[in-house]
């Protein structure tokens, strides 16, 4: 007598649908990811309990290094950057050729005074990345180039937002002079970049 044996299958799940979904999500995330560009100098922001994330708005960033140098990072938008460069050129009586303009559109951040901007932009890209400015953008009571950068950016597009990234050990008087400068041009709302810290339990 032949007994009826149940057919043995291995359990095979059809993965195709799952594969489709993962690909869809993967494509989405690949498209939306923006990798952080390496900073010229290491800046370790202080921690805070704030859970607000840096918004995506057109953002200019001021970096303050531990030894009190300022770097200015203009907005990403290339055409608006060009306009900014022209305006800054007008203010400081400088003209830039097309190569320098192209370099400015790609530059990560500016850390040189206006007088050295031309030679900085003329440098090849690799050198620019490793170039550590000895002085940063001047910011004192007589020479407020940093504030000029902010002001000219705002005149290009008043909707720009400003974020300030300072290092843990940046001396306060430096930050104070920056704040005072920003108050002078009536630019009063901005963000301080901080790192995450646990919220204390009450």
């Amino acid at each position, binding site marked *: 007598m032949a007994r009826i044996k149940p057919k043995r299958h291995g359990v095979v799940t059809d993965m195709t649908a799952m*594969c489709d979904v993962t690909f869809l999500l993967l494509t989405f995330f690949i498209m939306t990811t923006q990798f952080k560009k390496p900073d010229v100098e290491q800046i370790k922001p202080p*921690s805070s309990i704030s859970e607000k994330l840096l918004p995506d708005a057109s953002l200019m960033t001021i970096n303050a290094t531990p030894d009190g140098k300022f770097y200015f990072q203009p907005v990403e938008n290339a055409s608006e950057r060009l306009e900014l460069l022209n305006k800054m050129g007008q203010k400081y009586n400088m003209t830039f050729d097309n190569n320098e303009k192209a370099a400015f559109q790609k530059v990560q951040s500016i850390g040189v005074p206006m007088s050295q901007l031309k030679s900085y932009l003329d440098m090849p890209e690799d050198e620019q990345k490793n170039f550590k400015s000895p002085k940063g953008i001047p910011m004192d009571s007589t020479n407020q180039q940093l504030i000029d950068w902010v002001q000219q950016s705002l005149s290009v597009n008043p909707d720009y937002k400003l974020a300030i990234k300072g290092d843990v050990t940046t001396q306060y008087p430096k930050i104070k002079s920056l704040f005072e400068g920003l108050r002078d041009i009536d630019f009063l709302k901005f*963000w301080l970049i901080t790192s995450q810290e646990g919220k204390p339990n009450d």
Partner: protein
Amino acid sequence: MAEVQVQEKGAKGGKVRSKKNNPRVDMTPMVDLNFLLLMFFMFTSTFSKPNVMDLGLPAKPKKDTPKPPPTEIKLSNSISLLLGKDNKIFWHQQDNTSLNDTNLNETSYDREGIRKVIEQAKANAADKTKFTVIIKPTDDAVYKNFVDIIDEMAITKSEQYGVTDVKPWEKAIYEKKVGNSGAPAAPATK
């Protein structure tokens, strides 16, 4: 579906055919890989964003507008914090005549220190709605101190705070205090 349909062609002349299984492509490793990449991209996109805290500065008084009368803050309703060097912080509730180096108190930035002080001062304030914290960073302070103390304002929910410069009379006491605390330490190391 992922199965590839195999067309049966020329089956007539064919001899013994092996089983006609539809070749199935196993998608499992592909899904695995996809998930792995997906994880990577998800985490990099969310973690690369730094946190921010809002900061609003008071507008500078315009030259042509008349100055508003200086707002009087009652001493009991306010507390002054001096951010000193080497991550030291001092607090007092005195005015320029009564402040001396015994009532300029030193505390620390952690939760046992400054947070207790602020909470206590708030609880003792005569009018809690008007309780104001006056933050006075000295030139020796670092940026971290400033952010920490603004952060502390958020933690203790003291919405009213102001950042101003250190007054000369406070600076004198502060320097005396810092000098004093430094002086006994120096001979001790001998």
